[in-house]
């Protein structure tokens, strides 16, 4: 009898310990589920409090219901002038920010134009975080026209604004996310010119020097899309001083030139060619880039 009681006690202690550990481990999930449940309340003040908590938890699961609430709030007011400037749903979405970017993209994809405009307006508040860089890069890739066609709604042109927001957020990470450079370079091979263009400008922001990505940047100067050529030319101009320290993109056997000189030669000859580009924007940017690289070269020569 006594041993049985002891056995039951031990079992209870173990169960309690397992329960406590599970509770501790899943405390965020439990809290998140609770607030998601409260987000369905008929009482607005309860919904508002739940939204605030979900924002603080940076809940990805809350993105979809919050977008629905945002759309409902807009449609419940006859005009924008009647709407209060502060919206708890908008604040919560901004607080979740880059963590819920993939979910936000899915909502954007399915939304009507007015809701898309609401999502576009979130851009000014979202603060990107370094740990969310992979999600941002993945979302950028998913804005490609080809991937978008797989969705239920097809409006690729409208993805441009969201794509600009994604690349803008990644650009704000600047040097803190070089570990995603490989994935970003892969996006420069996307069939969608908008994605390629965004990828180049992100690459420029997150790298300190072109390094191993230089050959790809050079290849992008011959991209069929003028926007991509412009960004690639600007990026090479931006890295102008750094190019002095880079190895040749296309080493030539038996070449007397040093690797550094041949790199400069590759870049400058490609940019020279682009000065005659049919797109004024490309030609202008190539001219600017050449000016930057040459002024740095002259500066370096003078300092020698």
């Amino acid at each position: 009898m006594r041993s049985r009681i002891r056995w039951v006690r031990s079992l209870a202690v173990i169960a309690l310990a397992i329960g406590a550990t599970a509770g501790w481990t899943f405390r965020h999930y439990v809290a998140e589920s609770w607030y998601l449940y409260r987000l369905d309340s008929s009482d607005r003040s309860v919904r508002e409090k739940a939204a605030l908590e979900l924002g603080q938890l940076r809940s990805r699961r809350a993105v979809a219901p919050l977008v629905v609430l945002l759309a409902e709030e807009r449609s419940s007011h006859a005009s924008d002038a009647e709407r209060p400037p502060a919206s708890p749903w908008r604040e919560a979405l901004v607080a979740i920010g880059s963590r819920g970017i993939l979910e936000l993209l899915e909502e954007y994809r399915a939304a009507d134009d007015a809701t898309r405009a609401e999502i576009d307006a979130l851009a000014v508040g979202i603060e990107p975080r370094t740990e969310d860089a992979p999600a941002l890069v993945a979302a950028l890739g998913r804005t490609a026209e080809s991937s978008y066609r797989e969705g239920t709604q097809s409006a690729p042109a409208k993805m441009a604004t969201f794509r600009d927001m994604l690349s803008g957020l990644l650009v704000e990470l600047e040097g803190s996310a070089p570990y995603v450079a490989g994935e970003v370079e892969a996006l420069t091979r996307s069939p969608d010119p908008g994605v390629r263009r965004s990828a180049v400008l992100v690459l420029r922001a997150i790298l300190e020097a072109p390094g191993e990505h230089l050959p790809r940047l050079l290849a992008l100067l011959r991209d069929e899309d003028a926007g991509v050529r412009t960004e690639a030319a600007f990026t090479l101009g931006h890295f102008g001083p750094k190019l002095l320290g880079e190895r040749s993109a296309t080493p030539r056997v038996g070449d007397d030139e040093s690797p550094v000189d041949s790199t400069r030669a590759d870049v400058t000859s490609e940019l020279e060619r682009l000065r005659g580009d049919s797109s004024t924007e490309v030609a202008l940017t190539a001219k600017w880039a050449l000016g930057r690289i040459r002024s740095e070269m002259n500066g370096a020569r003078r300092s020698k």
Partner: protein
Amino acid sequence: MNETSSTRVDVRALGIRRALISAAIAMLVFAISQPLFGFYLPSFHLEDCAWNATDVVVVTEGEAIDGKVRVLETWIGEREVGETLSVSGLASFAPPAWREVWDWNRKATGQSVSGRRIVLFLERTKDGWTGAGGEGKYGGIGIASAWIEAGRAYVRSQLEPSGPQRFHESGTEATLRTRTLEIRAAKDELALATKIEDPRERLAALVQIVRGEIRTAIPLAIAEIEKLDPDTASKALKKLLADSDLRSVASLYVAQALIRVVIHDAGPVIVSALERETERWQVPPDASGKTPNKGDADDRADKCQYLIEVLLKAKYPECLPAVARFRRTLETSRELRPYRSTIGYSCDRLEEFYGAAAARGETR
């Protein structure tokens, strides 16, 4: 006794009424004068900033908005990536209230720009860095910067007289950069053109700038054309004005220059330009509803107004029949309806001016 007290009440009532009427008149006068005397603060003007800046850089404020910024990109100038600059005016944007974003319907969005990425249009002074936009106390870094949030640019502008300057969305960072480079390229081209020794080549380069899109460059290029010998200058200006594709602002500056160079020949050339524009407005829409001025109506209408106004200085009363023809088109054209009152006012002024001049017996 009763009579006296009722008289006093009447007098008091009369006094109150007078005071109320005076107050109402004062309020009415104030309300009417507001739009007349409301003061305008300068807003961010890209062309002004990009043209005058010695350095254009993309910077980050970092954790605190204290005016100490780190360079992320250099668009114009020699600043190096990573360099730290001290731009004192930026510190005043530390309170979030100063960085609130408003929409173009004059409504707060509830969000503020962060300062994580700012495009600064800087001018180097002996005391350090200052904003390249505006002048004197109406200048400052506030209207010489574009704050970037997720790729979009937010600039300070005043939407109504006497109203506050606030941040409003204005395109993307990419378009801002392209436009900045275009403006600087035009500035460089102008500098190069003025150094060309051969007058014919110099003229060709200057004409190219006048035909361009950068407004700041146009009067400067025309001033250089005016420095050529009068015959060459007048021929070039007449040829420019005869070009139907010349934009409104360029047409205005060219017509003004023509009056300065050859006042007696300027009138007929300006009138010819106006007549060509009148004919364009008279073309009826085709089957698809397209007219020659569709998509470009604002600039075309501005061009007509500028040409009419510049005729005031041309001392050419013979312009009146052409102006009358344009006025008839103005009154009948549906496309010109939005511009009817403003251009009509310019026509009135011109007709009044030459009518009065004729009455005084003034001739060319």
